């Protein structure tokens, strides 16, 4: 088990290296001279040349790449923002807590709502309750996040004056963003829990529990529920990374100073070091989340351990099967 976890952690290194390569190539492919962005329009040619030399822009691309990687690894240096002239890393770290607050709380809220919904739908399979839950969770996932956010602002802030329409640092300001973000995740988890629960209800041990006269509520919650954790964990994992990627939508709509808004602003201002830095940091967090999720799987379902310990070939097919089951 420890060996497996260690292996997964070490795997971060090649993946992040790949991400940095991709991001670096994007920068290399980008037209335009960063020096023009950094210096005022009145700068002389000499100043521009000095700046180019200082940033290492005169070096060949491979050397620039090595410098970039060494800077990230040794100093956590993601470059300097064109806009503020501050280190990108510092700016991202200042904003990261806001992004994480929304992501984590929204995830908690969606799981608390989705799990019971999924169980209820499975227990009442093919009744109107089931159909209603399936339909509404599907619609919930189909709404564009930004539109849902705007509609809720219109209803709860503009018309009812219940919560602020924009982030203002108060607790009430977090309410709408968290609700909006939780919508998409509810659908996925509820669907997964329902499918999984439908399989479990047909298992022999459930039939045995019923046959010995166990109360239906205990059958469902004690014998059934414990085995639905896999789709819940899958939902948390994909929801969290989905939210970190989609953070920029909610953060833009509600003007939350998070990493997502930072990247969105940087994109429109063509502030590439900030875009690259944001992508690298979020990719890093998502990679860690996916490792945590895989480890959690084995905790929730010890049967998976034997698969993970098995030789490489077998592991792949079991992983593919797990991916199918979770989808």
């Amino acid at each position, binding site marked *: 088990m420890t060996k497996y976890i260690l292996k997964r952690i070490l795997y971060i290194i090649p993946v992040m290296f790949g991400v940095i390569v991709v991001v670096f190539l994007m920068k290399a492919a980008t037209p335009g001279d960063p020096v023009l962005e950094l210096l005022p329009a009145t700068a002389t040619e000499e100043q521009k040349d000095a700046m180019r030399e200082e940033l290492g822009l005169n070096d060949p691309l491979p050397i620039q790449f090595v410098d970039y990687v060494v800077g990230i690894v040794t100093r956590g240096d993601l470059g300097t923002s064109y806009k503020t002239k501050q280190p990108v890393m510092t700016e991202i770290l200042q904003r990261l807590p806001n992004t994480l607050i929304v992501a984590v709380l929204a995830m908690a809220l969606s799981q608390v709502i989705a799990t019971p919904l999924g169980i209820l739908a499975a227990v009442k399979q093919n009744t109107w309750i089931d159909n209603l839950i399936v339909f509404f969770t599907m619609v919930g996932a189909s709404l564009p996040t930004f539109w849902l956010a*705007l509609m809720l602002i219109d209803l709860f802030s503009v018309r009812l004056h219940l919560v602020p329409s924009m982030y203002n640092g108060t607790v009430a300001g977090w309410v709408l963003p968290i609700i909006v973000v939780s919508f998409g995740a509810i659908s996925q988890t509820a669907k997964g829990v329902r499918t999984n629960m439908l399989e479990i209800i047909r298992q022999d041990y459930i039939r045995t529990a019923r046959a010995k006269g166990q109360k239906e509520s205990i059958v469902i919650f004690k014998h059934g529920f414990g085995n639905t954790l896999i789709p819940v964990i899958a939902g948390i994992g994909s929801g969290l990374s*989905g939210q970190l990627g989609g953070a920029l939508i909610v953060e833009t709509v509600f003007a939350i100073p998070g990493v997502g808004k930072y990247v969105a602003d940087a994109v429109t201002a063509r502030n590439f070091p900030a875009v690259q830095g944001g992508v690298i940091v979020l990719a890093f967090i998502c990679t860690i989340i996916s490792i945590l999720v895989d480890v959690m799987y084995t905790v929730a379902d010890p049967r998976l351990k034997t698969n993970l310990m098995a030789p490489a070939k077998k592991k792949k097919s079991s992983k593919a099967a797990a991916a199918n089951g979770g989808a």
Partner: protein
Amino acid sequence: MSKINTPAMEKLKKKNKYNESGVSTPGKEAWKRLRRNKTAMAGMLIILFLLAVAVLADVIAPYGYRDQDYSAVMQPPSAAHLFGTDNLGRDIFSRCVYGARYSLPIGVICVLIGLVIGGGLGLVAAYFGGHTDNIIMRIIDVIQAIPSTMLCIALVAILGNGMWQLIVAIAAGSIQGMTKSVRAAIFMVRNNEYVDSSKSIGVSDGKIMLRHLVPNAVGMIVINAVGGVSSNILTISTLSYIGVGLVSPTPEWGAILSEGKTYMTVAPYMVLYPGLMIAITVVAFNLFGNGLRDALDPRMK
């Protein structure tokens, strides 16, 4: 003899219609199951309707999508302007109708590109296995590590605004999902005897993949493709909303919405209707996709 024609018998005859018609192919079976699924058929009808709207936009829309009328600025919905008018006096209904010409085709084109590139990679990875599989999947791992919304936005930032740039970005963002799902689908069929027997009589790898593997995994591939269209439509509108991708005066739904948000407090209809169009389209594709899943997924039988 007259006893035979009881209503019950008629019903039975109708029920056996498919059996009477002779051969039953998997495709026919799936269509039969799909037709029984009312929500899936509803989704399909909405999709066909939206396609008709896109094709007939010139006939349906009462005004042009960039016709400005400064005497009718920010009018609430009325008989003359079903969805109201925007800050430049453009008819929002007409703009929404023309909008169907963007989201639907772009969503489908991006899925097709993603399917050819991503699906091709998944096919090759699953068929050859071993090192080929390892190399392809490690590359996919890297792409997957970057959240797809971020990847699309970063790509558009580099490529610039515009239709082709948007298509490239969204197609690139959908490659990794396609690779993984096609790979999983091919894995399920590649160990069948017919693959071994084809190999033994010297059929080339390319022919085995395209003739034998793809047709047998087509169900899973179609399910993923339809799901891909709905998520692509959401991504298109999201990018346009942020102001990258398609921008005004292009009547893309996300772009219309993005313009309207400034005036949302006084003219909520500028935001409401384009958003509804996106939501209805995505719901339709999801309904249809779920129905397809039930009809095509062998595990659901």
